[in-house]
């Protein structure tokens, strides 16, 4: 799955481009992919010493509400809260996409992992064949929240819903992510692909999944 994250500002904000977030407080759900996506969007627009962030709650609806009441000047959101924010007149000053990456224990067998990959691949094909049919999942996660309940399928930008067949993690991407996180002091030490990725299990599972699909 490809995750979409957006840097969002309230309707009355004077921020129109991400460069204008230099020195402005941005609420991030530290420790989560969306927060790191937010940092990367900020870093792409302003000097690192101008990136100004604070800890915000992980609940995107509450994070959005905090931004709207002025707790911070911008935040990073994911669907369906991006759509909620847009519908309320907020502006997306930057959007980005990142891979949702699975972490497994050594107890996972190649056969089980291959079955998981095959099932997800079939789901990806179904979703890509008819994204509108599956938009309801984004609402289902947040049922009972009036802003989400009020969304219709037509409110969603289907281009922000991206799924792709799962594949092995390219070493270059893993290395980049590690070194980027290390540069922010989030992790320490040099990148060691053998310590991070069990290539044997990964290869066996993907080959098994492909062989069964082909057969």
């Amino acid at each position, binding site marked *: *799955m490809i*995750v*979409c994250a957006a840097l969002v500002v309230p309707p009355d904000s004077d921020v129109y481009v991400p460069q204008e977030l230099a020195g402005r407080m941005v609420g*991030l*759900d*530290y*420790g*989560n*992919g969306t*927060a790191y996506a937010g940092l990367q969007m900020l870093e792409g627009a302003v000097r690192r010493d101008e990136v100004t*962030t604070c*800890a*915000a*709650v*992980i609940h995107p609806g509450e994070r959005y509400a905090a931004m709207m009441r002025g707790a911070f000047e911008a935040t990073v959101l*994911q*669907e*369906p809260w991006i759509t909620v924010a847009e519908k309320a007149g907020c502006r997306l000053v930057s959007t980005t996409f990142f891979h*949702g*990456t*699975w*972490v*497994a*224990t050594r*107890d*996972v*067998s190649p*056969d*089980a992992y291959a*079955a*998981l990959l*095959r*099932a*997800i691949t*079939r*789901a*990806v094909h*179904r*979703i890509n064949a008819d994204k509108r049919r*599956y938009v309801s*999942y*984004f609402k*289902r*996660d947040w049922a009972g929240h009036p802003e989400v309940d009020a969304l219709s399928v037509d409110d969603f930008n289907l281009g922000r*819903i991206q*799924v792709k067949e799962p594949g092995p993690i390219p070493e270059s991407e893993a290395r980049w992510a590690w070194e980027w996180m290390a540069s*922010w*002091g*989030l992790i320490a030490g040099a990148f060691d692909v053998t310590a991070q990725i069990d290539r044997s299990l990964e290869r066996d599972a993907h080959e098994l999944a492909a062989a069964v699909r082909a057969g």
Partner: protein
Amino acid sequence: MMTMTIEPVSAFSSLDVLVAMDEGLFAAEGLDLWMAAREARDIRSTTEGTLTSPVTNQGRLQERGDATMFQG
């Protein structure tokens, strides 16, 4: 039938997993996939953390052996 338990996922990051569960695609592949539930003790607020020392709930169920996969 093989079994696997994963940590809870949401549509924004795992629509494909949720669709596969609901439409019986894991079962069709011989995999009985379960989604573990977080307990109150598993949930800490991200506001307790800092940028360089974040608090995350991801991986907690895996750490204590209640799940074998989570999405990071």
